[in-house]
């Protein structure tokens, strides 16, 4: 199996706190990998390390065969931050077109991205006038332009209505079927059922790295949340 992301012994300290003590993980290509864990577990820090904006104490992060943050990666990765990073005083279309121009992508790729996140009806509205969920879709569309090989999405479905959430997960799988690799974080354990493979993170430690059925099999739990609790129990048992 090919790996898009290969992390070895990653250690990250933020604000004097060891957020990721020593993390090693490989992420397969062409699938939707869910990075699940409670808030504060280190999901965003891990994502920041992968896109190369995080100062790292130790360890290596290799993305698409290059060290994370290499210039060679900058037009191959789409990154969506947790809070929508868009310009409120630009229209939806101008936002997406700006990021398309930055990547040297064609303008029709911007139109397709707006279509994909279902915002065509709001294309000429200022982003600041939109709802929170709509703004996060503008942020997503801005990452879809230029068809990146790897999409790294930090909590893209937070605060969206169930219908939209379902549509977005369908979109993620459609992209994966087309060969895109996706890493999607969420603090909602229910979203485990939508992922091809799960990474369960707690306090900077990886509790699980497997598909959901294998995880349920191993723990004997009924769903991802129960499995998470069972694994936390085991981890605390061994720590004692």
């Amino acid at each position: 199996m090919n790996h898009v992301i290969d992390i070895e012994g990653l250690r990250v300290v933020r604000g004097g706190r060891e957020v990721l003590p020593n993390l090693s993980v490989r992420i397969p290509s062409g699938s939707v990998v869910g990075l699940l864990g409670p808030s504060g577990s280190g999901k965003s820090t891990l994502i920041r390390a992968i896109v190369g904006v995080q100062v790292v104490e130790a360890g290596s992060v290799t993305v698409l065969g290059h060290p994370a943050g290499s210039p060679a990666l900058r037009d191959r990765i789409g990154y969506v931050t947790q809070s929508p990073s868009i310009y409120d005083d630009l229209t939806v279309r101008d936002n997406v077109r700006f990021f398309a121009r930055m990547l040297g992508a064609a303008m029709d790729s911007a139109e397709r991205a707006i279509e994909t996140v279902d915002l065509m009806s709001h294309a000429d509205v200022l982003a600041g006038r939109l709802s929170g969920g709509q703004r996060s879709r503008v942020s997503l569309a801005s990452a879809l332009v230029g068809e990146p090989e790897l999409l790294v999405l930090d909590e893209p479905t937070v605060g969206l209505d169930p219908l939209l959430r379902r549509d977005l997960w369908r979109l993620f799988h459609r992209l994966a079927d087309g060969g895109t690799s996706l890493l999607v974080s969420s603090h909602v354990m229910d979203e485990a059922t939508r992922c091809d493979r799960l990474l369960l993170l707690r306090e900077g430690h990886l509790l699980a790295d497997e598909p959901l059925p294998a995880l349920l099999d191993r723990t004997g739990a009924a769903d991802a949340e129960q499995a998470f609790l069972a694994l936390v129990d085991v981890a605390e048992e061994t720590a004692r």
Partner: protein
Amino acid sequence: MNPTRTLVVAGRVLRQLRVDHRTIALMLVVPCVLLGLLAWIFDGTPVFDRIGPALLGVFPFVVMFIVTSVATLRERTSGTLERLLTTPMGKGDLMFGYALAFGLMAVLQAVVASAFAIYVCDLDLQGPVWVLVIVAVADAVLGTALGLLASGFARTEFQAVQFMPAFVLPQFLLCGLLVVRDQLPSVLQPISDVLPLSYAVDAMNEVAAESDPLAGIAPELAVIVAWIGASLLLGSLTLRRRTP
């Protein structure tokens, strides 16, 4: 750096400004109102002719400093900067894109304010208007460059606004507008000789006094351009792709 991406940044900054009619109006109207007030309170005296040209250099500097430092700070706090730094955009593209966009706004501001000062307030100007506009644009880009640098040290918008008096007012006091530069206390003279706004004001005064000032102001313009280059360079060092 890449000229296309620099232009893309500049275009985006102008597009954002275009939506904000109030900011554009303030940038164009406030200097005129202040110049008009000044001409009015010193009506019948030579004071306006003495300090008017210098103020045409100070206004674009101050306005661009504030606008740029707040705009770039917004870019940092909204997360768009972090996102942009994961794209092929170079740090120079961002710095020069902002400088270019606000430089264009400065041309507009300088033309409007100079026209108002000369034709409405009867400012007595010996040199040609286009040289005055060149100096005003250089001052505005200087304000933009220092604003970009200052925003690197601000964490909140409150701090960014406070940097205006911190960066600008000392230069204003020492630039020769209140007390002629060679009559300053001897300790302050060398400081005044280093600060860029002093050269902006000197250049404006020469444009006001000489009918062919271009050769005379070349050294002042060179100092201003050197400050612009140094500030942009230092400012780009405050843009880090990786943050803690």
